[in-house]
């Protein structure tokens, strides 16, 4: 819906100032709000209509004025009207809502990725550069940020009202959401899915920083090890490289370049290798056996934490050539393992 931008801003500012309305701090927010106001309008119209009918008739046909009722059977025309008009309105709402849904859940290709782990009762964010945060999340404004989220125990839900985005954080599987913050500031972060005793304590803050400030922040809070570097260590210490060493004699397939590729499985189907697939093939390897290999890989279910899995996944994502795999024999000091600055963190 197109309200004049001036009017829109006025309305939003005014509502916000009277604390009846959350700030619009992401690019999505105006879209959500537009649908919201449209629906509010429909509701008000519907309510006024129904109210007018009820009160109008009540006054016009009250016993004192109309002592004898006139029996009416019904009217096909009228009834068709109030079947079709609401139906049409609801269908518009459906289409609009569906478009919005895909806008919110379909990240742009160039978004930067941050991992989020939910557990009773805290949020842990892991930036690709290795910065860890608890119950807070620093993001730059002006560029799309995708969150890849997973829960270690029960359902949680990651909600940023000022951005109008929210997504369930599910145990056992990655879920994603993205946003593009517009205004620097500090915003609420809530866990909105009931998750046990301290559910209401599972809150935090979203700090949206200008790109420059964000740059500064990443520099200051780096732990020195990127996720991929952590993953590299794990890869060695868990013994993965015993099989995945990229040599001809290796019992497992080479993982170089596997991310983003299409694999053929032994049952003939094709899969796209994404984060979820990588995670799953570490935990349930026999679920999808790569063609040409025996199902000998052991399961790591219960042996690697979700953090560790994220590290491994990030590491595997960075393996683009056999050369890197060879390198894993020596725990590398390489700073090539993963980009530390956001500008390089572009998803392939």
């Amino acid at each position: 819906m197109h309200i004049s931008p001036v009017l829109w801003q006025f309305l939003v500012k005014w509502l916000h100032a009277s604390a009846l309305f959350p700030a619009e701090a992401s690019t999505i927010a105006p879209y959500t709000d537009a649908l919201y106001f449209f629906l509010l309008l429909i509701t008000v119209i519907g309510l006024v209509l129904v109210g007018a009918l009820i009160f109008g008739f009540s006054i016009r046909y009250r016993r004192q004025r109309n002592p004898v009722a006139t029996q009416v059977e019904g009217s096909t025309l009228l009834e068709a009207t109030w079947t079709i008009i609401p139906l049409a309105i609801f269908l518009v709402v459906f289409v609009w809502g569906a478009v919005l849904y895909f806008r919110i859940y379909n990240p742009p290709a160039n978004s930067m990725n941050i991992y989020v782990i939910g557990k009773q009762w805290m949020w842990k964010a892991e930036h690709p550069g290795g910065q860890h945060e608890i119950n807070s999340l620093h993001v730059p404004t002006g560029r799309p940020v995708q969150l890849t989220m997973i829960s270690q125990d029960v359902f949680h839900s990651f909600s940023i009202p000022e951005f109008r985005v929210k997504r369930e954080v599910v145990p056992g599987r990655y879920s994603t959401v993205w946003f593009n913050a517009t205004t620097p500031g500090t915003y609420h972060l809530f866990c909105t899915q009931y998750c046990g005793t301290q559910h209401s304590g599972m809150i935090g803050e979203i700090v949206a920083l200008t790109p420059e400030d964000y740059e500064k922040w990443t520099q200051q809070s780096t732990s020195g090890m990127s996720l991929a570097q952590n993953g590299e260590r794990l890869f060695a210490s868990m013994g993965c490289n015993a099989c995945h060493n990229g040599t001809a004699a290796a019992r497992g397939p080479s993982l170089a370049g596997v991310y983003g590729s299409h694999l053929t499985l032994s049952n003939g189907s094709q899969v796209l290798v994404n984060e979820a697939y990588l995670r799953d093939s570490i935990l349930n390897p026999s679920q999808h056996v790569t063609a040409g290999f025996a199902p000998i890989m052991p399961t790591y279910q219960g042996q690697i934490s979700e953090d560790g899995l994220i590290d491994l996944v990030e590491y595997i994502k960075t393996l683009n050539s056999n050369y890197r795999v060879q390198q894993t024999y020596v725990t590398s000091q390489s700073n090539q393992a993963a980009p530390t600055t956001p500008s390089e963190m572009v998803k392939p």
Partner: protein
Amino acid sequence: MSTAPIAISNTIVQLPDQTTATLPKRNYINAESGMLSWLLTGDHKRIAMLYLASITFFFFIGGAFAGAIRLELLTPQPDLVASDTYNKMFSMHGIIMIFLFLVPSVPATLGNFLIPIMIGAKDLAFPKINLLSWYLYMIGGTLTLAALVLGGVDTGWTFTTPLSTHYLNTHVITAASAIFVAGFASIFTGLNFIVTIHRMRAPGMTWFRMPLFVWSNYAASILMVLGTPVLAIALVLVALERTIGIGVFDPTKGGDPLLFQHLFWFYSHPAVYIMILPGMGVISEVISTFSRKRVFGYTAVAFSSVAIALFGFFVWAHHMFIMGVSNFSALVFSLLTMLVAVPSAIKIFNWAFTLQKGSITFETPMLYAFAFIGLFTIGGLTGVFLGSLGLDIHLTETYFIVAHFHYVMVGGMLMAFLAGIHFWWPKMTGRMYPESVSKLSAIISFIGFNLTFMPQFILGYLGMPRRYHAYPADFQVLNVLSTAGATVLGVGFLMPLLYLGWSLKYGAIAGNNPWQATGLEWQIQSPPLTENFLVTPIVTQEAYDYEWLEKKTKQEVTTVG
């Protein structure tokens, strides 16, 4: 006592001369006496009264929890109770209100009492199963109280896995079995209604002569019979998972937690229509009676009940939009949600047009019915907000939902229940409730209700999550309003308890048909005889045929007692 009902007066109440009137000598209440005669009764009317007493009891327990919740939320800090206590409070509030109050509210009390009479039968088809249903309900209630006394449950009423199966060590199994047992109570009620409506109608009572109340209860019964067992099996699986922990719902063992959600909502979405449909039936009766007019578009209203019941089975995943159902399913379920909203809209407009050209009076039931229409419209349309995929992302799991469902459940069904209780009180007890006090309480509840739940819509859009024990201080003002409203609302709900109790002894004698309504139930004495009809009625008139009633009233000399 005047025979013609068309006196120009403020009220159509046709009370017999109070100086000479007495209650009928023989009626279902005094047919037998003693505790056992109630506990072992097969009479649908007595079972209805048993149900009425028990659901009222549970309503006030649930209401007490609501009061405590609102009190805690008065301040942003977690100060009144501990977190897990708070969680137990809203869980018990939800469980009690839904399974022990709202689901049985209209069907098991008014429906039980009236359906056989409305279709001209002497009782429900299976009186013993009807009684069994009440006992199951009581066992369920007792188990719930046991779970409460033993220390409570904190799953929320939705029992979300894997939280409920692996992460809570409260009395989940006790609560689950309580719901399991109470579920069978509602299955048996529904089964009884369906058989009765199909098989026991009086001669001449065709389907399209049945009062709309019967239609809507029929539709709700279908949902009870087909939906509830799925909830039962879901709860059985939760209990098994909790005790032996196999992993049907546990992702670390290869199970899918969403499977539980599918099974749970397969029941619980139809359940919301179990909760609203019988209330809609009440509204049809009340609106028609007090505007003295046949319901506008009888067939459309009747079929829309059935349509709601049918479509109600196809939309459950709208409770799981962001929980990980596929995008394809989200789309399908969102579309179907839009479709299921239409029959409700049809009903609203048909009721509004029933008033047109009527001769309207404003007794208490009518006030409640007006409240229903307004509040249900708000509640229903905000349901459409939630059904709209993109908006649900922002609104789900916030107070917006809490407001939505209180508008439909409290503003809708509870108001309809109160409308029905007032409307049929004279029939059930033989005595009138006091009119002006009850009007006052209707108005108080209406104001209190809006004050309580309107701010929650705003809170929801601001992002305040539901099931929060403590919240950021910026939300306080609206929460204070809400708590204030709840206090008013509490008064509004406490008043009927008092004056209805009072009226049992001191209320005016009602006579057979104080409202001059057309239903068969109004053509027999109040309170009715155990066997309802001395002579099985032969139905020749349509439902809501006020001309027929007028003729009939003119002919007969009304006697009471």
